[in-house]
């Protein structure tokens, strides 16, 4: 791991220690966030799959009914029958916060509808198959909206999880080891300086004592 390019001083050491503490704390929090997001995400994505399977099955049913209707009616008649909708769907999109990820919530309400009468056409010129198709389509609508909500949520959460995971990894494998190594380096350097200083002082003391008492000469004079 690369050591940060800093001066080995006490002040830098204190700052680095502070940064390491923050990094460790951030790492722990992000890791918790990632785990919780993942837990929620898996639940949502499971539902998403189920809903999509339902929608795809129902849609193929709708299409096969429509194909029958189209076969029995002319294109112009079919278009004419469907061109002016009787009901209007209003969508209210609000947002929900899952672990600080903003996800949409879709609520819809239908307007201008009286009971189960959803057919925007008279029955004289249309075939019965079209009625069936319309009813099937009406039934699939809530599922479509639910699917939209789940799928968008899953996409947004997947993105957030990826981001969080990158951050966790960057902290765990780059930031924290770098800081640790740099701190170790500074501590070693300071210790080394301290030892150097100590030996220097001892040496100086020796030299001063020698100067004052001339031990060496006295040793030489003794028999």
């Amino acid at each position, binding site marked *: 791991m690369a050591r940060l390019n800093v001066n080995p001083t006490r002040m830098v050491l204190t700052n680095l220690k502070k940064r390491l503490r923050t990094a460790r704390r951030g790492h722990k929090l992000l890791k918790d966030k990632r785990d919780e997001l*993942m837990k929620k*995400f*898996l639940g949502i*994505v*499971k539902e*998403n*799959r189920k809903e*999509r*399977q339902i*929608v*795809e099955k129902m*849609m*193929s049913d*709708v*299409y096969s009914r*429509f*194909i029958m209707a*189209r076969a029995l009616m002319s294109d112009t008649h*079919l*278009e004419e*029958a*469907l*061109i002016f*909708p*009787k*009901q*209007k*769907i209003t*969508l*209210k*999109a609000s*947002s929900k916060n899952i672990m600080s990820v*903003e996800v*949409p919530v*879709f609520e819809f309400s*239908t*307007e201008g509808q009286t009971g189960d009468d*959803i*057919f*925007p056409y008279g029955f004289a010129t249309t075939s019965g198959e079209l009625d069936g*198709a*319309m009813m099937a*389509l*009406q039934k699939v*609508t809530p599922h*479509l*909206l639910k*699917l*939209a*909500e789940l*799928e*968008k949520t*899953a*996409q*947004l*959460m*997947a*993105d957030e*999880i*990826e981001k969080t995971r990158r951050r966790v990894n960057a902290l765990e494998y780059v930031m924290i080891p770098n800081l640790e190594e740099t701190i170790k380096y500074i501590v070693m350097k300071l210790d080394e300086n301290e030892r150097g200083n100590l030996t220097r002082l001892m040496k100086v003391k020796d030299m001063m004592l020698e100067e004052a008492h001339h031990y060496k000469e006295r040793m030489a004079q003794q028999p």
Partner: protein
Amino acid sequence: MHKIAVMGDKDSILGFKAIGFDIYPTNNKNEAASTLHSLADDGYALIYITENSASEIMDEISKYRNRYFPAIILIPGSTGSLGIGMKFVKESIEKAVGADILAQDD
């Protein structure tokens, strides 16, 4: 109030008109891409697009993937499901987890 749009070939999406969605028939790639962008700018919160049309403009769709709005949802077209919608779900899982850990469920 937000609006819902349905894009795709006319045959597939005609029925949605009757239940109150706005339909935008598209016939080719360029048309689909420009329609998608104008719908997104126009304040549609929800855009359904048939897999057939979607498969031509994947790049454009993925631009909106991480945006809050609009939600672009793939639905099977009249030719049946192509499995692209399910692939999107799979991609989300792979992105988040690293592998599709739910693959054995179906």
